[in-house]
């Protein structure tokens, strides 16, 4: 006997095209004008923050930083779709998501200057801290989702991983657990085409990354990650259905800037490649939509920019007033202070090793 044991396919969704036109065949659900303007403003804000951090970094006022320029829709679509009590689990490039969820900007800046104190308010906005070891956070997301289910909170967990991160064993294992445990988790693959210098094509021989979900027995979809409407729709649907189990959403976007401030992308990709994606900019296309529908004008744009510039400057000022306390390195390791740590801390303080 020879029969088909399994067949599957992955759908791709785009609602808002590069020219700002909407595909009428796909219902916008609850995307109203108020939401659309909110999406736009949050995306612009994230980009303004990115460019500010990059300029501070060049002046030596920030540590290494990886901007999310070009990837805003992939994050803002989800941020707007999430309920306040839903939990988000980022990797390290989800700046727009953090800010949209209400991370105080001065804390955001503080983290990227190199201080753990920046992570403190994440808990208040139901977010996890920045996670640097790629892909490892996906398992936490599954555990968090299991806890939501067990404790009947009704909350969903939304986790992010990059295209590179989907190659890690941790990612596959997380997906597999999510399938078996049937937990309310939405695993978002922020496929920005690159993992430092390694292109998506060298990351996996699979045609889509979303199809990895099929092997874990959970549904997956691919969306245009530069289309904030499509991201919103996919994530809201997944959250709505999260009682039935996990969901994988691959967002196709593009890392328009360097990997981090330590990276030189000219070593491995061409300007032409980047330019092609500039035309697909998520902010640009939403702006086109807004103009077409008379929802936005240059006056509003310049007012917004002014407001953001002020807001950002004020946050930088606050952040720069922060005085690190080296004792916090010792006090926060355990729920108590072991004698060894106490002695090391006292020794450093008494002998003035902290300068």
């Amino acid at each position: 006997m020879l029969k088909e044991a399994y067949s599957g396919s992955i759908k791709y969704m785009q609602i808002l095209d590069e020219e700002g036109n909407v595909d009428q065949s796909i219902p916008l659900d609850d995307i109203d004008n108020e939401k659309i303007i909110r999406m736009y403003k949050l995306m612009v804000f994230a980009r303004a923050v990115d460019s500010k951090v990059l300029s501070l970094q060049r002046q030596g006022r920030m540590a290494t930083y990886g901007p999310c320029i070009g990837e805003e829709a992939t994050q803002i679509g989800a941020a707007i779709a999430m309920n306040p009590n839903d939990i988000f689990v980022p990797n390290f490039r989800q700046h727009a998501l953090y800010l949209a969820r209400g991370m105080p900007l001065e804390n955001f800046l503080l983290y990227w200057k190199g201080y753990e104190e920046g992570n403190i308010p994440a808990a208040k906005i139901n977010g996890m801290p920045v996670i640097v070891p790629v892909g490892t956070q996906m398992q936490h997301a599954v555990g968090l989702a299991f806890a939501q289910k067990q404790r009947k909170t009704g909350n969903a967990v939304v986790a992010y991983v990059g295209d590179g991160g989907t190659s890690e064993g941790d990612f596959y294992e997380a997906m597999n657990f999510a399938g078996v445990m049937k937990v309310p988790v939405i695993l978002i693959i922020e496929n920005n085409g690159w993992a430092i210098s390694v292109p998506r094509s060298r990351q996996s021989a699979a045609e889509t990354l979303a199809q990895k979900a099929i092997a874990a027995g959970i549904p997956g979809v691919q969306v245009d990650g530069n289309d904030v409407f499509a991201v919103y729709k996919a994530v809201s649907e997944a959250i709505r259905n999260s009682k039935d189990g996990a969901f994988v959403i691959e967002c196709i976007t593009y890392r328009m800037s360097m990997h981090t401030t330590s990276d030189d992308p000219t070593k491995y990709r061409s300007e032409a490649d980047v330019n092609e994606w500039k035309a697909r900019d998520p902010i640009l296309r939403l702006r086109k939509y807004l103009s077409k529908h008379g929802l936005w004008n240059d006056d509003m744009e310049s007012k917004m920019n002014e407001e953001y510039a002020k807001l950002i400057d004020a946050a930088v000022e606050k952040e720069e007033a922060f005085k690190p306390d080296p004792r916090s390195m010792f006090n926060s390791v355990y729920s108590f202070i072991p004698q060894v740590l106490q002695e090391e801390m006292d020794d450093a303080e008494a002998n003035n090793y902290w300068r």
Partner: protein
Amino acid sequence: MVTALNNAIDLLLKEDENVVVLGEDVGKDGGVFRVTDGLQAKYGDNRVIDTPLAESAIIGTSIGMALGGLKPIAEIQFAGFMYLGFGQIINHCSRYRTRTRGTRSLNMVIRTPVGGGIRALEHHSENPEALYAHANGLIVVEPSNPYDAKGLMISAMHMNDPVIFLEPTKLYRLFKQEVQDGMYEVEIGKANVVKEGSKLSIITYGTMTRIVEDVVSKKNVDAEIVDLRTISPLDEKTIIDSAKKTGRVMIVHEASASFGVGAEISARIAEKAIFELQAPILRVASPSIPVPCPGYEDYYLPNAKKISNAIDKILSV
């Protein structure tokens, strides 16, 4: 040190076509620190391989390659990410030889950047040498200068054992040193007495070697400085001889103190030379806390002042 390592790997690739380099961003990008820069262009993408992002697979596949007769030099982008491949290292790298009673050995090197001082993000400044040394069956080396880096890399590949090759990021571009052209080896398992002295022995390695040298020369103390170069297996003879000679021992490393290499060295000295000591052994190391984010780095890393105070203290006994 980047140039010296690049040169060593270049020579090894040229010498033996079974040598392959693999890791994240090692090809076109030449590695995030440029240690493998230009090598893919020179030897092709079958010899210098950009892998998908998966440390366990980089190490596990390297093990398979070595079992299949190749000689892999795997790069793990930062030591902080090597933990994702820790199972492969501990379960297999360290014991394949003994499991097969020597009939299958792993001629491979796992290179990875270690240590702080470059203001990198969390997980980019780890010093995990004690973990690998404690595994038994692994060779663990950590050079403190370009000359040793090149010679140790060549020795590591010429040796039929798995080598964990730790490269201090701080030293990658810190100073220039004349390094001879062509192949040469620096013996693995042999410490280097960088400076002879009679009043005090300072045992150190990696980045701390430079700082210790500076402090000792500024203070003008008659100290003997031993640079381990190989952490495991430990060059016990050089250490014990020096301890007996000076009667005072200080151990300086960047990794945290608790359960570290310093503890091992001091136990060995206590076992073999305690009656020849005139003062308790002192360790200068990072505190026993996780490596902090870069903003706190200066408060965390052992600095010249801490080393200098310890020298005063041990000489005053």
